[in-house]
């Protein structure tokens, strides 16, 4: 069954190649992209089913034994992430079919989407640090192009900042890999875990760890490295913003969690304390940014940052429960945030703007949409029994366990401000009477918009009401992360 690990990558690569070859035919491209994403969901589901009970699937690509070749590893955490990527990919593609303009499609929108998801899945599944760099570049360059595809001035401004800051991250990452290889002579992450543990305990390894923290911190949009995110996300069309908001920063978080549970665990007292306070700062600055804005998309963008803080908080606390909280939070956030950007897109289509001041009356004219916004929004606000509540609760409990009361207070306070923002959007865009005359003629929304929204909303409900299987999976995944021995044995075989 280990060949299964490569299946998501093969599926995405194949569909992107075919879509690339059919660049001239819009409908065919859409059909291929959709088929590819459905196939990815199936592949990811299969992979998840195989790893659900804690088994770690390992594939030695090109059939060279680890640590010599490149190893693909699907532990439960990776499988969960691939599944989430598949869900976001599928829904975003569906939404795109109803939204994306012919120009973007002609210049490769769908193949790029597929490649983006390919890069994301590759990053989740690889067990090799340099290969991780490569997948990061794949997803990054695809996201660059998608971000810039609009071609107008706002998109260009956003894309430039996005590109420049992310390239700095790539350079730092690459430097880190080089320095780590120089010190250990290996690139396989399981092997690195062993070698770094044996390395001298001077400043070198910690400094290298900080390089990785900065590099991944930029991708994850942590404080004070997040500037690219609010600078760019709001310039992208709704499905792109949704895909980016749901998925991309989480790749950074994934990499942080992977590296700081598998490789850099020798100096936890130092490294994870830094992550802890950066997480708190991330939560606070992000939510304040959201409070300061009155534009639906900008509010949502800043909230991403704030919630990244929660996810890295779990890593920083570094207990099985806390990590389980992080993982569950990631899953919840990906589904909910993607959906909120979709809804924002529909709000824009119906109301002609993202500005709260010019919106209103949607609860009356579109009650179903109000419900579909209500579910993810108040899930994000942490209202039980929606998914966000359990995500927050586990982290709160973990922080209380560790007696981090200051952190706990911040986490709860930020939760309140999140609720404030969501209420603000709900009240202004939905409850408030519609202002006279929309600024632009409304575009309307149909099957391709509502289906992904309704699907994700349903998932949010399932993730909340029937949280147990997901929480227990998150716990199992966290246990695997906290005991790297299992991962290492799976990759390198039994120690001699």
């Amino acid at each position: 069954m280990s060949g299964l690990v490569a299946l998501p990558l093969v599926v995405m690569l194949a569909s992107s190649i075919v879509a690339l070859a059919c660049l001239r035919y819009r409908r065919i491209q859409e059909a291929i992209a959709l088929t590819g994403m459905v196939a990815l969901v199936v592949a990811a589901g299969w992979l998840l089913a195989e790893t659900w009970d804690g088994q770690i699937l390992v594939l030695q690509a090109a059939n060279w034994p680890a640590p010599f070749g490149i190893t693909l590893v699907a532990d439960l955490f990776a499988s969960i992430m691939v599944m989430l990527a598949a869900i976001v990919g599928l829904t975003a593609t569906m939404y795109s079919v109803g939204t994306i303009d012919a120009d973007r499609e002609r210049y490769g929108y769908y193949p790029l989407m597929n490649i983006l998801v390919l890069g994301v899945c590759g990053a989740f599944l690889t067990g090799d640090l340099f290969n991780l760099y490569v997948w990061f570049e794949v997803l990054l360059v695809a996201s660059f192009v998608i971000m810039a595809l609009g071609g107008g001035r706002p998109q260009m401004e956003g894309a430039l900042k996005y590109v420049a800051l992310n390239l700095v991250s790539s350079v730092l990452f690459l430097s880190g890999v080089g320095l780590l290889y120089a010190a250990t002579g290996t690139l396989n992450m399981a092997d690195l875990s062993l070698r770094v543990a044996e390395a001298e305990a001077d400043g070198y390894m910690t400094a290298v760890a900080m390089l990785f923290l900065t590099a991944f911190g930029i991708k994850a949009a942590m404080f004070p490295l997040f500037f690219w995110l609010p600078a760019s996300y709001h310039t992208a069309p709704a499905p792109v913003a949704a895909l980016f908001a749901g998925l991309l920063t989480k790749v950074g978080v994934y990499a942080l969690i992977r590296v700081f549970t598998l490789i850099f665990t020798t100096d936890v007292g130092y490294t994870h304390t830094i992550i802890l306070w950066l997480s708190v700062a991330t939560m606070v600055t992000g939510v304040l940014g959201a409070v300061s804005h009155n534009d639906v998309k900008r509010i949502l963008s800043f909230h991403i940052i704030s919630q990244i803080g929660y996810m890295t908080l779990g890593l920083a606390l570094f207990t099985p429960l806390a990590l389980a909280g992080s993982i569950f939070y990631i899953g919840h956030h990906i589904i909910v945030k993607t959906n909120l950007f979709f809804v924002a897109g529909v709000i824009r289509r119906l109301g002609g703007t993202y500005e709260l001041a010019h919106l209103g009356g949607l609860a009356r004219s579109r009650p179903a949409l109000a419900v579909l916004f209500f579910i993810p929004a108040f899930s994000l606000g942490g209202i039980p029994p929606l998914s966000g509540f359990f995500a927050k609760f586990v982290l709160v409990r973990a922080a209380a366990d560790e007696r981090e009361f200051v952190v706990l207070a911040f986490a709860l306070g930020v939760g309140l401000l999140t609720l404030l923002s969501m209420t603000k959007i709900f009240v202004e865009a939905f409850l408030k009477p519609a202002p006279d005359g929309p600024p632009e003629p409304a575009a309307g929304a149909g099957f391709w918009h509502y289906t992904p929204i309704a699907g994700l909303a349903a998932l949010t409900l399932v993730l909340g009401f029937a949280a147990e299987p997901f929480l227990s999976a998150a716990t199992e995944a966290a246990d695997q992360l906290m005991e790297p021995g299992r991962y290492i044995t799976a990759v390198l075989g039994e120690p001699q």
Partner: protein
Amino acid sequence: MALSVFALCGFAMALAAPFLPIWRFRAGGWLAASVPAASFAYFLTLVPRIGDGEVVTASWNWIPTLDIAFALRVDGLALLMALLVSGTGALVVLYSGAYLQGKPGLGRFMAYLFGFMGSMLGLVLAGDLITLFVFWELTSITSFLLISFETEKAEARKAATQALLVTGGGGLALLGGFALIGIEAGTYDIAEITAGGGVLAESSRYLPILVLVLAGAFTKSAQFPFHFWLPGAMAAPTPVSAYLHSATMVKAGVYLLARLHPALGDTTEWTVVLTAFGSVTMVLGAFIAVHQTDLKLILAYSTVAALGLLVLLLGIGTDLAVKAAMVFLLAHALYKGALFLAAGSIDHGTGTREIGALGGLARAMPITSAALAVGAISLAGFGPVLAFIGKEALIEAALHFDRAGEAAVLVAVVAGGALFAVAAGMMGRLLIGAERAPHRPHESPWEMLAGPVLLSVLSVVFALAPVLIAGDLVAPAAAAVAGEQVKVNLALWHGVNTALLLSLLSLAIAGGVLWGARRLRPVSARIADAAGPLRPGDLYYTSLLNLNRVARQQTRLLQHGYLRLYLAVTLATAVALVFTAITARGGVDLDNSYGDVAFYEATIAGVIIAGAGLAIRANDRLTAVAALGAVGFGVALVYAFFGAPDLALTQFLIETLTVLLFVLVFYRLPRLSDVSSVGTRVRDAALSIAAGALMTVLVLASITQTSDHTLTAYFAETSKPVAFGRNVVNVILVDFRSLDTLGEIIVLAVAALGVVAMLKLRREDSP
């Protein structure tokens, strides 16, 4: 099973309500009311069993991973509350059907109302802290929806948001408190926690737990200084007010305190905080009520006072006090429900709630007036009503309170006096005298009268025959709160005793208040003006405004749009993190002899460095390209001289292409100009040099690290025999690490797509 069905049927109705076709008909209301009525009947059947000390439970292992159960548990306290919730629920649904008949959105309103009822029932019946919390937050959300029901009113939206934020904030604190309780008690099961006795009270986390739980309870139950949201919530339609304020939501906080009393109560902190806040809230609520002219606001502030009273009683915490609290809880639910429904009826029948504009309604609206009268008598606490028994019990409890009995008595008497004044004013203005109203008053339909009448009748009946409730209802409830059996003997007439005398004293105070109210109004208005910014309601708005201001300033500071500064901060962070790591961890090892330098090598390095320097100084494009080329080719030479011909070849070819690209792209761009100030340049230079220096240090340090060459050896040994290639680098690229190469060509392909898009996309449109 039956328990869960009857507890949760509200949610089923909530989901169905918007789609039910019954709301257009008059019968819709009473059809719907039959659902909570059925629940009420079910809970009534439990009364004897619970009275015998039995406990009815239902439980599912909801989330075993986190030890969270979905558990329902009916004991005396839960049953009392459940009866109130379902009973008033049925009456309010019936009432709303008529009150809002024909209004658009009645289905939606019913959905919210049933959702609220389900949440409230779940809250009081929860046997697990997390289950309780789930319903707790759901009551906040559903009441948000109810208060904002008339969405076109800005005031309603504002009040709803305010209520949600205040109670939601409290809810978050509560969540923290519950998490701590879970850690200390090792369970979320309420029965186990309360049976644990002093475990929590003696734990080291007691104080944080208490603070967090009280924050939740006080916000929900509108205790000072959080009382301001409650009158704001009057923007809701009247049935909502009745429901929120009589039986339910605001009592949730009190309920929680009562529920956790066995686990958290009876400590000095508990007693002091609860009695203090309860007293302040009670007096404050009563005195603000005196000054109100809007019927609903009068009732709202008197509710604040009543909630203060309940908290005060739970703070005192003696058996007497607990018993008084339970009686008063029931009494208040009955009379306040009647009053609110009657007030709605008056609003409905006359078109206003301003008592100044009303008068002499007794004739035109006799039934409503009668109910109002009973309610007012209850509010005053004098007469054959259950509230009187409650008030007597309160004074009795205060008298026997050994810590600060005198103060408690004083509070009760003073606040009681003010409330009496409120009640008297209300009755005098509304019922007696010449008929006055904006339009001709008319009596309401029977659906709207059933509630106030029934509740008033019960108020009187229970007062006259307290035996109906003492043993089966109040005693088990009090036992659940006290954590032990409590003897409950209720009677309307105890003879002339201290309590009665004190009641009479408060009557005198009421006279004083009534007499002084008009004269004192200018004074109190001036005080209010002076204390304006400190008023909790204003404090809420100023803090919201300040929050907005701070958020704006922060965002302006961080997200200003200058890419250079973003880069600078990012870079500074990296430098700071790496530098601190090195110094904090004892530096890095640099003791090493670094080999000799051949002349040609030094030359190459020199070329690279010179190229870099030139690139910095270049102010025209050609120089920049040339400088870049020098660096690139220099690096290629380094590769060539140090055993990397493939790299050299590739770098050489790439460099050529890059130069070509630069030429093709940059001849279209304007002349380079650097307009940064000297200060900026110095700052940037310092930052860059620091980063570069750190990199140099790390590279040097890397050489001293003991590295391992297993990989290299393996590749060298297998490249030819197993992978059939003599160029090890190429074999790595296309075989050992071919996955990297696959990724690499994907990157190239995407970059090519990107370049084409940037050059050609919509070029027809752009100028």
